[in-house]
């Protein structure tokens, strides 16, 4: 059991995450019913306001707070209790992040920021929305540096040793996050805030988009890497085996520092201001993350096979039936991984240069991120929640909770299969994303989109409703395990943090020489961005004034 103060810190982070989850999923439910014209919003509420809240609260707030709750717990568990300074800065980071969240959310609710979570200029929200976003990022940096400080203390006391795998992976994720945020901080602080408060008249739109996507793509790896940490470090322990290969796990993580950042142009493939050469170069760099992804897939299935055979599984696939399918901590994460197979394949399609034109900004993209961040990441976090909260509160995870957890995971899977399949197919037909109900004046081709067996408004609405039910079951589990379930007194009722052993004896030391990886990352960023970005700045058109079109 980790120190009481560290538990409190982690629980506050997780608590905020699930408040955001509650409001965010409610937004999702409203959206599917507005889109099929079954629900009329009152005049003071707008579809795009709900859409902004749904995106910001789930993709940014839920994920980030949960990730820090997970990191804090795991760092305290693997490196020892936090010192007073680390604890203080973790709290400062938490409150600054929360302040930013509250400011941005208040602006969305007030209708001053219906600009979606991508906030593309020259849509101009209230300046306080951008200040809120900046505080949010700065807060995560403070929390990040607190964890880095904790790690440095450990390194100083354990000279010449490799750090535990969990800590190594946390630091990798944090390094990537800090470098990635430089882009969004630059655009928000130097472009949006002066412009939104009227200190400057105009904004360079293409530059702001490019700086945003410098951040926007690694953001998805900031969600994914903590899920990968669960897959690498938590799953083997649940299965009763060791980490498949310590060096392989570390290598795949550092590759993400290198290849998740210099790739933002693949979100800008169909826009002007970037020449084809630089777009294609970043497409190539984008695909490099396939290598660590394949390494991860291999490690996972190797772990499953080793565990299944240990349990008496025979033959080519016999081990598969011997996995602990009744253990909700495992089954949830296994389903999450299964969703990532079509999710990752869809990502390859999206980034495939000219092929992007077929899917760009269609509902396909919405389907894509619901089976990447919306399931592989979110469901891994759910699978962690089932033991993480009881571990932190010292309460039981009762039989009825286990059953409910299973129901929750299964309903989420069914809802997501229905909704995301409909979205993918609708997108291929051409239906745009981010739209309220529209038949484009009953244009025949728009009518055709929604006329299929799976491609209709009903499938999406049924899927969305099942997902909402599932989300409410999860909220119930969270509330119970946080406040109401009976305390675990007997040792057999205590919920543990499953952290697998990892054999470091053959892991090369250079893997933990961060300057190598930061240096290479900076080099790749310079190669990918220096020339096109300076061209963009030097040949900038007159800037744009702000518009409030909502």
């Amino acid at each position: 059991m980790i120190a009481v103060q560290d538990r409190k810190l982690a629980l506050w982070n997780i608590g905020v995450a699930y408040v955001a989850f509650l409001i965010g999923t409610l937004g999702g439910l409203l959206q599917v019913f507005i889109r099929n014209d079954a629900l009329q919003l009152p005049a003071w509420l707008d579809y795009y306001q709900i859409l902004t809240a749904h995106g910001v609260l789930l993709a940014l707030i839920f994920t980030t707070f949960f990730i820090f709750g997970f990191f804090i717990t795991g760092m305290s568990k693997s490196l020892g209790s936090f010192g007073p300074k680390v604890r203080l800065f973790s709290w400062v980071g938490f409150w600054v992040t929360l302040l930013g969240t509250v400011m941005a959310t208040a602006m969305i609710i007030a209708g001053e920021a219906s600009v979606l979570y991508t906030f593309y200029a020259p849509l101009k929200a209230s300046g306080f929305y951008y200040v809120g976003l900046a505080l949010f990022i700065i807060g995560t940096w403070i929390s990040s540096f607190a964890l880095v400080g904790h790690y440095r203390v450990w390194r100083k006391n354990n000279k010449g040793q490799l750090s535990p795998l969990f800590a190594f992976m946390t630091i990798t994720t944090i390094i990537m996050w800090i470098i990635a945020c430089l882009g969004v901080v630059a655009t928000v602080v130097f472009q949006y805030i002066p412009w939104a408060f009227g200190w400057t008249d105009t904004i360079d739109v293409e530059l702001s988009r490019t700086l945003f996507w410098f951040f926007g793509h690694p953001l998805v790896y900031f969600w994914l890497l903590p899920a990968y940490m669960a897959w690498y470090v938590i799953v083997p322990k649940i299965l009763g085996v060791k980490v498949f290969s310590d060096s392989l796990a570390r290598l795949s993580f550092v590759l993400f520092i290198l290849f998740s950042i210099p790739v933002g142009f693949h979100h800008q493939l169909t826009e002007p201001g970037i020449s084809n050469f630089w777009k294609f170069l970043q497409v190539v760099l984008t695909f490099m993350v396939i290598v660590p992804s394949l390494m991860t897939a291999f490690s996972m299935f190797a772990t499953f096979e080793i565990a299944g055979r240990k349990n008496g599984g025979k033959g080519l696939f016999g081990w598969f039936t011997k996995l602990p399918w009744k253990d909700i901590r495992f089954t949830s994460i296994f389903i999450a991984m299964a969703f990532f197979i079509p999710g990752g394949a869809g990502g390859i399609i999206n980034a495939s240069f000219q092929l992007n034109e077929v899917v760009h900004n269609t509902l396909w993209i919405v389907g894509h991120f619901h089976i990447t961040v919306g399931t592989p990441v979110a469901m891994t976090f759910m699978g962690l929640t089932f033991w993480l909260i009881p571990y932190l509160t010292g309460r039981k995870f009762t039989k009825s909770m286990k059953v409910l957890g299973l129901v929750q995971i299964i309903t989420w899977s069914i809802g997501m299969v229905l909704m995301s399949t409909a979205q993918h197919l609708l997108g291929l037909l051409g239906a745009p994303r981010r739209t309220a109900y529209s038949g484009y004046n009953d244009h025949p081709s728009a009518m055709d989109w929604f006329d299929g067996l799976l491609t209709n408004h009903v499938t999406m609405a049924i899927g969305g409703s099942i997902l909402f039910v599932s989300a409410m079951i999860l909220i119930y589990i969270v509330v119970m395990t946080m406040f109401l379930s009976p305390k675990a007194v007997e040792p057999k009722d205590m919920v543990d943090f499953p952290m697998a052993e990892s054999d470091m004896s053959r892991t090369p030391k250079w893997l933990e020489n961060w300057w190598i990886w930061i240096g290479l990352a900076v080099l790749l960023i310079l190669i990918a961005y220096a020339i096109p970005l300076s061209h963009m700045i030097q040949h900038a058109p007159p800037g744009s004034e702000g518009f409030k079109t909502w």
Partner: protein
Amino acid sequence: MHLHKYEKIWLVFGIVSLIVFLSVVGVSAFSQGHTPAGGMDTIDPKKVNETAPFDNPGVTQLDDDTYQVAIVALAFGYTAPDLKVPVGKEIVFKVTSTDVVHSFTIDNTKVNMMVVPGRITTKSYTFEKPGTYLILCNEYCGTGHHMMYTEIEVYEE
């Protein structure tokens, strides 16, 4: 660093497929001209209506086989009078915006262009089938985003 034999096979297979795949995409892009919408031209977003070709939006025949279509996108529509183009000819679309970011997307085609104020997006496309095509905006641009559309008629000569 130790790698399992099967893992080596798996990674080599993955990396080779990656190289093949990227080569196919690259050759198709740069030797056959299958590149996405783009362009490096800039424009003053406040002077769009007095800058060529947007001072005269709509269809212009450039030569026997090429037509240019100049479009201005703005919240929530397109200033493009009466879009009619022939089937089987190269159509060069040039689009810009006078306000926020939009898209110019023609349903059932590969024309899917981001429209950024201050920039001119260009895409060349040849229609293979006649008909009336739906044009819509698929980048969020405000309250009326889902009402932003128009049509283009592709006729047989």
